[in-house]
């Protein structure tokens, strides 16, 4: 049987919860024995997705954001879901520097960061229904397994 583990959290779409969300995901991820760099990558990607859900999905109204994490062997998967207003044009939304809120000093780099720090990013969205961002990262790629070396 494959080595799997899952967790799910649901929290209010308040900006104060952004820190909680990335720390919760990071601590669940530690069982994969990731490098500091890998944890930082996942934290950044989660932070971007959660921020998107809060400011774009719900437009600062208070609803629930859901995060689901799944570990399968050495692959870490995280899904960030909201039931907010959804994205009309996903391709446009994912383009670096594209932002619908330039007046709020949004950099338009959210999806670009998610793509840079994770192995894959999939976005499903339906206007009026919500958005689901699914990201995967293989942890411990190219790391030598020191326990197999003779000491």
């Amino acid at each position, binding site marked *: 049987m494959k080595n799997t583990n899952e967790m799910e959290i649901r929290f209010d779409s308040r*900006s*104060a919860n*952004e*820190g909680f969300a*990335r720390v919760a995901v990071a601590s669940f991820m530690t069982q994969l024995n990731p490098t500091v*760099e890998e944890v*930082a990558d996942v*934290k*950044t990607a989660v*932070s*971007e997705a959660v*921020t998107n859900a*809060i*400011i774009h999905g719900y437009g600062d109204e208070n609803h629930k954001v859901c995060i689901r994490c799944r570990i399968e062997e050495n692959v870490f998967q995280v899904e960030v879901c909201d039931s907010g207003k959804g994205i009309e044009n996903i391709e446009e939304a994912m383009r670096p520097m594209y932002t619908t809120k330039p007046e*709020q*000093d*949004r*950099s*338009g*780099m*959210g999806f*670009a*960061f998610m793509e*840079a720090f994770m192995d894959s990013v999939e976005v499903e969205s339906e206007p009026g229904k919500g958005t689901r961002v699914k990201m995967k990262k293989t942890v411990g790629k190219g790391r030598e397994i020191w326990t197999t070396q003779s000491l």
Partner: protein
Amino acid sequence: MKYQVQENCLTIYLPREVDHHVAEEMKREADAVIDRNHIKYVIFDFEKTDFMDSSGIGVIMGRYKTISLIGGEVWAVHANERIRKILTLSGVTKIMQIYEEERA
């Protein structure tokens, strides 16, 4: 927001984590200080910072837009490897100088 004003230069001491939550308040405060003190140079001090996402990039870009109108500059100091990576990846290094301190 922790900051210091010396003549026309504003140094912002960034917190441990820079995300959308802290960015909102920081933008408001920084803009008020920039306006009140005729600031031309903004230094972002990353000494205490080990996490930043694209919200932080937005803060830098927004302040640059304001002060570049009067020929000002934005600088980064004490940025660790991770922060440098975020700054470089975002392309903000095109408008921002990174101060290279001597390394021991």
